[in-house]
């Protein structure tokens, strides 16, 4: 994708603009976070009690970290709903419940396709739902 079209991508929303607009100067450091997710934890993926933050970043980070596709779309939706743009990041939301997170992951929502148990096991999903489900 060309830089010209990137500027158009950036025009999506307030925060998206700040995040996506190509800076004029030299390197600001490493690649964007959604392209450098943490290393997936080793061990049995079926075992409960994993680190919800790490698992969220590993398995949902393709789209839901800064600059990701899901973040861009959610930022726009949040701003239109009168919320602050930082709420486009799921990790900043305080209104999500664990059950809601589980349902959206397994059933999909809007442009987000449903996720299989190979994408995210039930144990991993429980940990992610606990991490994101700040509303209980």
């Amino acid at each position, binding site marked *: *994708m*060309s*830089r*010209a*079209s*990137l500027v*158009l*991508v950036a*025009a*999506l929303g307030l925060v998206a603009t700040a995040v*996506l607009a*190509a*800076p004029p*100067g*030299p*390197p*600001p450091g*490493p*690649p*964007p976070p*959604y*392209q*450098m*997710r943490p290393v997936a934890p080793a061990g049995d993926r*079926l075992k409960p009690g994993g680190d919800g933050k790490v698992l969220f970043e590993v398995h949902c980070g*393709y*789209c839901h970290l800064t*600059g*990701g*596709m*899901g973040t*861009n*779309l959610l930022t726009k939706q949040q701003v239109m709903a009168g919320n602050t743009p930082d709420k486009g990041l799921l990790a900043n939301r305080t209104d999500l419940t664990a059950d809601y997170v589980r349902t959206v992951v*397994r*059933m*999909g929502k*809007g*442009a987000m*396709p*449903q*996720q*299989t*148990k*190979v*994408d995210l*096991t039930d144990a991993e999903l429980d940990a992610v739902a606990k991490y994101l489900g700040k509303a209980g």
Partner: protein
Amino acid sequence: MKLHLPPRVSPKQFQAAMTAFAGVVGKDWVMDSDADRDAYSDTYAPGSTEEWPASAAVAPASVDEVRAIVRLANEHKTPLWPVARGKNLGYGTAAPRLPGTVVLDLGRMNKILELDTKLAYCVVEPGVGFFDLYEHIQREKAPLWMSVPGNAWGSVLGNALEHGIGYTPYGLHARNLCGIEAVLPDGDLVRTGMGAMSNNPAWHLFPMSYGPTFDLAFSQSNLGVVTKAGVWLQPAPESSLEIVWDIPKVEDIGWVVDTIAPLKISGLIDQNVFIPSWLGKMVLKGQRRDFWDKPSAIPEWRVEELLKEHKLGYWQVALRLYGEESVVKAKAEVVKAAMKRNLAAGPAEHWWHPGDYIHGVDTTMGIPSAVPLQMSDWIGGRGAHMGFSPVVPATGKHVLDQMARSRKIIADFDVDFYASFTIGGRFANNVNMLMYDRDNAAEVVKMRKLFDALITETAKAGYAEYRTHLGWMDPVMETFDFNNHALRRFGEKVKNALDPNGIIAPGKQGIWPAAYADARGRSNKV
């Protein structure tokens, strides 16, 4: 989704197969609940997901487990649909062609087995995604670049095996494959090329080995389950220059192709040059209703207005050159002079040197991203889309002819025209993106009729698709008609010889084993 059994398999036999699979992979990795079947359905299905339903999914973690599952599938006459990461979005996602087939999900086999910086290649398992490989290369600080598709959520091998394309010098992804390991339909294990010799270090380096060359026989194919492969990577260039032209008029695509294709064929341009129409940029600026609030196609006068308002050309050429700076500079002069013959306005130029910022969404630099999938929000709803993707010779005459035909058919159906051409050498891949609301039954019916019409009319003109959705695998194979469909007859002879029970991906790309040939041309109409 309720259970749709494979043909001629009773509920009891099906349960026996599931129990046998669980004995190999563990019961947690046999997924056969209603919710699991939904998870493996086609998320962008043009219509009901029950038209192409999986009965279950099974997820092995090793080559040995794949071999055991394949042997058991033969024993239980239960067909398998192998997917790498199951993200074949727009072409069926993870769903199988034959109703009741069990998805063989290779997503757990996600090891990067080798990364060779000197000879610029890697060896990966099918579950390795573009993001995984990119992050590994970054962590290793390896001076290597990848080639990625528009939406890079999927698998490196899955995309290459499905003939996916990218926008770098390594953009013909199937051509980057070198040396494949595959489980055959009887559970046997084969390595292609130099890998046919034990411990041969040139396995992933030399593509034209001794004897018949089978690597690509496993692409868009149902002859085996690929369990690992070598993938060539691009050495990181010393510099790169992006040159961007806005091309004003729709008919300009003719001279643009006649200008760029010869430079691509000669090797002066080495990337796949992607030329999207204006709508390709508009879809990232908002939703359709922000720009045109009627269900009818956006009329030409409104297109003109939008191009003016948003300072867009009808097309955009964003061409990238790679290599030593002096070479890139010299190449750029040749390209600019060639373009200037038809376009007075000079291009925008963006240099890149190692250490410079790379934008998170730059497919021409091999950065994986799912952001281009944001186009699925254009219509809203569940973001359904399908690509009609014929291949034409890379000349202005062929491209204009193809475009005029598609454009008229699409206009006759009162649908927006959203085309791109990617010049990959002597050919151009034309993708006509059709975006629709899959919860609007009338719209789905219209899109399906439109898709049928595009295939039929394009074939009459002598052009074919290179890839298609599950629902059109048979009609597209039907268009390959030379000598009474000799290619299909050959494919099916080979299929029947290797897979007498027809258990690997029956119907894939319109190749049907005898065991399920009665399902040709059919789906679960619901």
